[in-house]
């Protein structure tokens, strides 16, 4: 199953609802394009909803990191929402859990953007 992205705007925050697998190849490219597209449209507050991400490999982890730095370098903020246990564990193992701002509630995630 390849990755899909649905984009919506809530209170000035661009929410990318991701589903499927973020893996080397199509999945990573889809995520990269979606984040770059949001930045190109002027979004500075980006929330990646990972609730329906079933799998992520090292390339996918790298793409999340690249997205984080791209948004930060553009003067914005990128946060993660609704990690599955598998993704949560991977971010713990790679010590990225403390790098990302991780939320588990959409409303509070949106209000956390300043």
């Amino acid at each position: 199953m390849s990755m899909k992205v649905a984009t919506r705007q809530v209170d000035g925050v661009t929410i990318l609802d991701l589903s499927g697998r973020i893996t080397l190849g199509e999945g990573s490219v889809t995520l990269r394009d979606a984040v770059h597209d949001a930045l190109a449209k002027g979004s500075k507050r980006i929330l990646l909803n990972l609730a329906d991400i079933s799998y992520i490999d090292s390339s996918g982890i790298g793409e999340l990191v690249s997205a984080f730095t791209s948004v930060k370098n553009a003067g914005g903020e990128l946060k993660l929402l609704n990690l599955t246990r598998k993704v949560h564990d991977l971010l713990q193992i790679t010590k990225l859990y403390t790098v990302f701002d991780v939320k588990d509630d959409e409303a509070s995630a949106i209000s956390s953007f300043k």
Partner: protein
Amino acid sequence: MTPDSAASRLSMTLSSSLESVDKLEHTAEDFAGRAGFDEDTVPHVAMAVREAAINAVLHGNSYNTSKQIIASFETTSTDFIFRIADQGTGFDPADLPDPLAPENILRGSGRGIFLIRAFMDEVHFRQLHPGTEITLIKHRAPSQPAT
């Protein structure tokens, strides 16, 4: 191509493609499940195999269609064993940067071997001249019969 109780070893020669990576990952899930690993361990084994396959296809053979990858799965009474060899220029695993180091934590790559080591019990590298062979071993608990 499917492992069963009578055939606990499977060898494959595959092209240097993402389709081969996916195929090896799915075969690893099948083998690890039949080896009796629990539902948390099977995905870890499959991910380690996927990462090793990515290394072979991407970093070893550089997607070169004239180069192949040779892989094997084996279940013994004590271990799940996966081997994969590429035909690339080889590399020294000691040269790999630590992905947990503060200066590397925000790098967009370089976590594959780290994840393999995190999920498997033993990881061995062998230089083939040309190419690299990596062997991944996961120990089976004594109460894990093959099905």
